[in-house]
């Protein structure tokens, strides 16, 4: 090989490197150029809230425009609650997070991106709407599913997402646990056996609540879907005539929480805007949108208006039965927690 050859090879490599560099610089420049014209807010939320926040955002943009004259753009990102929290921890620049449960926000707070006392910043535990866990069954309820203990009967296929990645799935799991504790006078060993029997009946573990709903409604797998009440009502509306909802007599009060991501809004200069956005969720206008999207509103007047939609269910809270999310998470869902044992034993 002559010296000229290798010199040119070096040149070619350099030229290639230059092209790569230029392309990357171009790529880095593009999002900045595109986002210049109006202020934006990024709401990172969990799976079933897509439709809710599309409507909330439209209403808030109008209200904000009327009040300040400023045009806004609100971006949405949805996925399993735990997965979304992970993305924010890894640098997804959410101005506000509206996740399925307080623990996922705690996880972000532990990395210092949110004030640890975030839950006291807004009223009602920073949860502007609540929901509960119900069953969606096939039309006519052919397997006669009425209560939690029907889910552990042999031969019943139960659809629920993976509690490791999905907030809804953790509510499902804890609701089942709480039911059995209540029935057996707080016998934790019996509760574990009950939940193990339940997961023995689960053929598919999707990563998020919406994935499980599509598994049940579109792919036709399973006899019963354990789901958010809002998710179950939505499925009834979208695929009419095929399913019905069974509300168990006892279930858990699910409080999906919202907060501002302090580190991000301070860097973006969007704190006032983000706080206004979250306060808006408590206004009668937003509470009405919330109720129409099948979440239980906090506002008593709006709740009264929609009373027929939400059957009375005796609800226990996570604080009463599990001593709060921190304890529930460590005991059940952390690595080496009870759920790890449950899923291994359920496969036997």
């Amino acid at each position: 090989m002559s010296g000229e050859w290798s010199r040119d090879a070096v040149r070619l490599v350099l030229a290639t490197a230059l092209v790569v560099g230029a392309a990357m610089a171009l790529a880095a420049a593009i999002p900045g150029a595109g986002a210049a014209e109006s202020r934006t807010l990024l709401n990172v939320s969990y799976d079933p809230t897509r439709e809710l926040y599309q409507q909330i955002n439209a209403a808030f943009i109008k209200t904000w425009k009327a009040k300040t004259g400023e045009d806004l753009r609100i971006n949405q990102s949805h996925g399993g609650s735990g997965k979304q929290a992970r993305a924010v921890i890894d640098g997804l620049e959410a101005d506000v997070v509206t996740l399925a449960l307080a623990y996922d926000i705690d996880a972000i707070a532990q990395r210092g991106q949110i004030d640890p006392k975030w839950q006291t910043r807004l009223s009602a535990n920073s949860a502007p709407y609540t929901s509960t866990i119900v069953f969606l069954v096939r039309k006519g309820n052919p397997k006669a599913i009425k209560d939690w203990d029907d889910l552990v009967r042999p031969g019943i296929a139960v659809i629920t997402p993976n509690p490791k990645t999905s907030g809804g799935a953790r509510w499902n799991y804890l609701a089942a646990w709480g039911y059995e504790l209540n029935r057996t006078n707080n016998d934790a060993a019996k509760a574990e056996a009950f939940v193990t029997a339940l997961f023995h009946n689960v053929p598919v573990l999707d990563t998020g609540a919406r994935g499980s709903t599509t598994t049940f409604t579109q792919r036709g797998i399973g006899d019963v879907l354990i789901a958010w009440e809002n998710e179950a009502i939505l499925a009834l509306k979208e695929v009419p005539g095929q399913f019905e909802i069974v509300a168990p007599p006892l279930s858990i009060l699910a409080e999906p929480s919202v907060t501002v991501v302090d580190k991000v809004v301070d860097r973006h200069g969007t704190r006032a805007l983000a706080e206004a956005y979250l306060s808006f969720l408590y206004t009668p206008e937003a509470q009405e949108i919330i109720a129409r999207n099948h979440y239980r509103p906090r506002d008593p007047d709006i709740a009264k208006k929609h009373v027929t939609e939400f059957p009375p269910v005796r609800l226990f809270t996570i604080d009463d039965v599990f001593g709060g999310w921190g304890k529930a998470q460590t005991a059940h869902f952390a690595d080496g927690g009870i759920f790890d044992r449950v899923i291994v034993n359920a496969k036997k």
Partner: protein
Amino acid sequence: MRRDESPLIRWLLIALALGFLGLFLVLPLAAVLAQALGKGTGAYFAALTQPDAWASIRLTLLVAAIAVPVNIGFGLAASWAIAKFDFRGKSLLISLIDLPFSVSPVISGLVFVLLFGLQGWFGETLRDHNIRVLFAVPGIVLATMFVTFPFVARELIPLMEEQGREEEEAAIVLGAGGFKTFLTVTLPNVKWGLLHGVLLCNARAMGEFGAVSVVSGHIRGLTNTMPLHVEILYNEYDFVGAFAVASLLALLALLTLVAKSALEWRLRDEIAALRQS
């Protein structure tokens, strides 16, 4: 095939192959189109021109427009170096080029989370300088480049090795410089193979789901590529929208397939000609 093979067996085999093709290729494609057009062509085009869908189409094209040229440059450089020169670590380089083929796309995505995530190596520095890589377009481009970089090189290395070094050496002897030799001898010799690699690379760049899903952040209208948007629409019970975007992706794949088949004809002639000479 032996000429005395019974025609019955021959026809059976052909029918089997066609039936298989119909079941696994034509039927799903037809299903996609049928779903997409389920509520008429009006709904179909409305779904495609919806802002979020349009944004996902633009993003997909942008990502391909960056990732493919970069990989052409890399693929040419790597295959040229490997086929025409001897150096230490050559086989290591070849194995490294194959790496994205053997690694799951999810891992390919997570690699970038580990590098550019806020908890990762460069995350805080990048944030302090207001540079967004992860959960923005650069991250999606990087993940796509990583997943697609073997295509061009893998296509060119065997072709260049087959062609040998004689022509280049002749060019050098006749006084051409290295770069001129590359442009006038090597490049024209491999142009069809190169195009073939580019097509494959492009198809994968536009269709990649796993790696892109990990680094995208799923922000509607900003960081959703077409495959991600299809999933989102499907999960929102918007079947017409989901399958309309899917049909567009399928159309791109079909075009790629047609172009690829045409190229394969040319390529086969070329290699045959080479073998004879």
